C-alpha cells in the first residue's frame, strides 16, 4: 500500500511538471482513475477572487474589527478574564493540595516509611536556606529534637521496648557514649541523673533506634559507695564467669552495684549471658531474667529462650539481649518480632554475641 502511495506521488509530480496525462496513466495503469481525477481537479481549480471581492472582503473585515473594538468591555476582561486560566489554576491548586498533603504525611513519617526521604529532603532545604549562624543552630537543635521523637515513636511502633543495663562510662565522643562496652546515643533530651563522668558507673535505660543504635532515654549515675549485699549462692561456673572484671551481677537478686572495684576498660557489658555479671540490656517491661533450665552458658556458647523483641539490621534483640546475626547463623522457622525463639550464640572476645542458631519456638 505504501508503495502505491509513493507511485501516486511520483505520478502527480510528473503531471505537475507537464507530462501528458495519458503518458503518465500508461506508466501507472493501476493509478489511471486517480490520475484522471487529479487532472480534473486541476481543471476545476476555482479562480482567485476578483479585485472587487478582495476589496469588499477587506472592507468588511476592517468594519467588523472596528465594531468589535468599540464593543470591547475592559471591565469584562478584569472580571472574567481569569476564567481563561481557570483550568491551569485548577491544576495548580491540585498540585499544591497534593504537595501539602504529602508534606503533612511526610512530617509524620518515621525512618523506613516511604515519605521519610521527603521529610529529610525538606529538612535539608530548610537547613540550606538558613544562612544566619544563630538561626541555623536553632534549626539544627529543632531537627535533633525531631530525630529524638522519631526514634521514640519508632521504638514504640516496633514494640522493642526499652532495655536497661549498668556499666561504667568508658568513653564520651560527641553524642556517642560508651557505657559498659555498649555505644549509646545521647540526645539533649536524654535524662541524665546525677553527676556523670568518665569511669563513673551508671545505669542506662535505652531503646533500639534505627540502624541498630541504642538511644539513651535515661542515664543515672550510680554512687560508688559500697552497699554490700549478700552475695547469692553461685555455681562454680558463675564464679568462673564473674572472675572477669565486671560491674553488676545481673543474676543476683538485689545488688545493682557490687563492691568489686571493676577496672572499667575491661568491663564488658555484654548483653549476653545471664549467668555473667556483665551489663546486659534487658527489657524493663519484664523482670530481670532468672536462670531457667532453658538458659545455659556452655563456655563461650550461650543458649537461651525468649521473645524476639527487635530486628535492627544484623542486630537482633532477644529477651533484652543484643545478638549479631551473620551469614553463618542458622535461622529456622522464619522468626519475626514477637515470636518466641531459642538462641544459641557464641560470645566474642569483646563481649558481643554472635548467633550460631536461632530457632522459632511456637
Amino acid at each position, binding site marked *: *500500500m*505504501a508503495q*502505491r*502511495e*509513493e507511485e*501516486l*506521488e511520483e505520478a502527480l509530480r510528473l503531471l505537475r511538471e507537464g507530462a501528458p496525462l495519458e503518458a503518465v496513466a500508461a506508466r501507472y495503469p493501476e493509478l489511471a*482513475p*486517480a*490520475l*484522471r*481525477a*487529479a487532472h*480534473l*481537479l*486541476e*481543471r*476545476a*481549480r*476555482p479562480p482567485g*477572487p*476578483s479585485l472587487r*471581492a478582495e476589496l*469588499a*472582503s477587506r472592507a*468588511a*473585515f476592517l468594519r*467588523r*474589527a472596528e465594531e*468589535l473594538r468599540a464593543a*470591547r468591555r475592559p471591565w469584562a476582561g478584569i472580571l472574567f478574564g481569569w476564567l*481563561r486560566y481557570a483550568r491551569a489554576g485548577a491544576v495548580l491548586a491540585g498540585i499544591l493540595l497534593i504537595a501539602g498533603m504529602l508534606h503533612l504525611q511526610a512530617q509524620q513519617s518515621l525512618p523506613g516509611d516511604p515519605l521519610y526521604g521527603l521529610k529529610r529532603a525538606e529538612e535539608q532545604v530548610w537547613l540550606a536556606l538558613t544562612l544566619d549562624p544563630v538561626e541555623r543552630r536553632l534549626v539544627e537543635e529543632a531537627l535533633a529534637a525531631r530525630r529524638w521523637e522519631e526514634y521514640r515513636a519508632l521504638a514504640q511502633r516496633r514494640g522493642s521496648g526499652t532495655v536497661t543495663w549498668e556499666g561504667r562510662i568508658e568513653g564520651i565522643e560527641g553524642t556517642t557514649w560508651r557505657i559498659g562496652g555498649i555505644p549509646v546515643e545521647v540526645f539533649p533530651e536524654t535524662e541524665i541523673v546525677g553527676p556523670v563522668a568518665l569511669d563513673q558507673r551508671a545505669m542506662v535505660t535505652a531503646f533500639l533506634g534505627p540502624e541498630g543504635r541504642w538511644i539513651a532515654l535515661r542515664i543515672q549515675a550510680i554512687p560508688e559507695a559500697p552497699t554490700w549485699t549478700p552475695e547469692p549462692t553461685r555455681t562454680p561456673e558463675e564464679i568462673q564467669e564473674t572472675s572477669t572484671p565486671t560491674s553488676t551481677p545481673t543474676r543476683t537478686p538485689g545488688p545493682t552495684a557490687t563492691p568489686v572495684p571493676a577496672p572499667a576498660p575491661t568491663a564488658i557489658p555484654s548483653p549476653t549471658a545471664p549467668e555473667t555479671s556483665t551489663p546486659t540490656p534487658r527489657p524493663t517491661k519484664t523482670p530481670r531474667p532468672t536462670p531457667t533450665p532453658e538458659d545455659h552458658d556452655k563456655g563461650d556458647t550461650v543458649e537461651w529462650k525468649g521473645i524476639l523483641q527487635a530486628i535492627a539490621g544484623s542486630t537482633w534483640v532477644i529477651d533484652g539481649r543484643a545478638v549479631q546475626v551473620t551469614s553463618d547463623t542458622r535461622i529456622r522457622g522464619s522468626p519475626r518480632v514477637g515470636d518466641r525463639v531459642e538462641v544459641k550464640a557464641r560470645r566474642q572476645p569483646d563481649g558481643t554475641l554472635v548467633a550460631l542458631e536461632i530457632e522459632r519456638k511456637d
Partner: protein
Amino acid sequence: MAAEDLTAEVFTRLLEAFHRGRGPERHLTAWLFRTADHLVADHHRARYRRPEVALEEAWAAAREEERSDVVVQERVREALEHLTPDQRAVILMRFWMDLPLAQIARELEKSVGAVKLLQHRALAALAKRLQDLRSDHGAA
C-alpha cells in the same frame, strides 16, 4: 458571488473567534478550512431550501469551452462533497492551494504517511464519484 462572500465570512469569523479568545492557537489553515467547510454546508442547505433560478441568459451567452469548465467544476464540487472532511482538506490543500505534504501534515496534525494515504483514498473516491456522475449525465 457566493464563494467570495463566504471567503470573507470565514475571515470575519476568525476575527470574532480571536475577539472571544477562542481563536486557533496553531494550525490556522486547518481552522480556516473547517470553518469554510461549515459555511459552505450551511450555504448549500440554505440554497436547497430557497432554490435559485439559473441565469439562462448568462448561460446562453457563455462559450462552449466555458460551459464545459463550468460543468467540470460543478461535478468536481459535487464529488468533493462526498469525501470525508479530512480527505477534502487534503485534496483542497494539495491541489488548489499547492501546499507541500509536510505542511498539510502539520496543519492536520497527522503524519506525512497518513496524509499520503488520505490523498490516495480521496483521489480514488473522487474518481469513482466522477465516474458515477459521468455515467448519470454523460461524458463531460
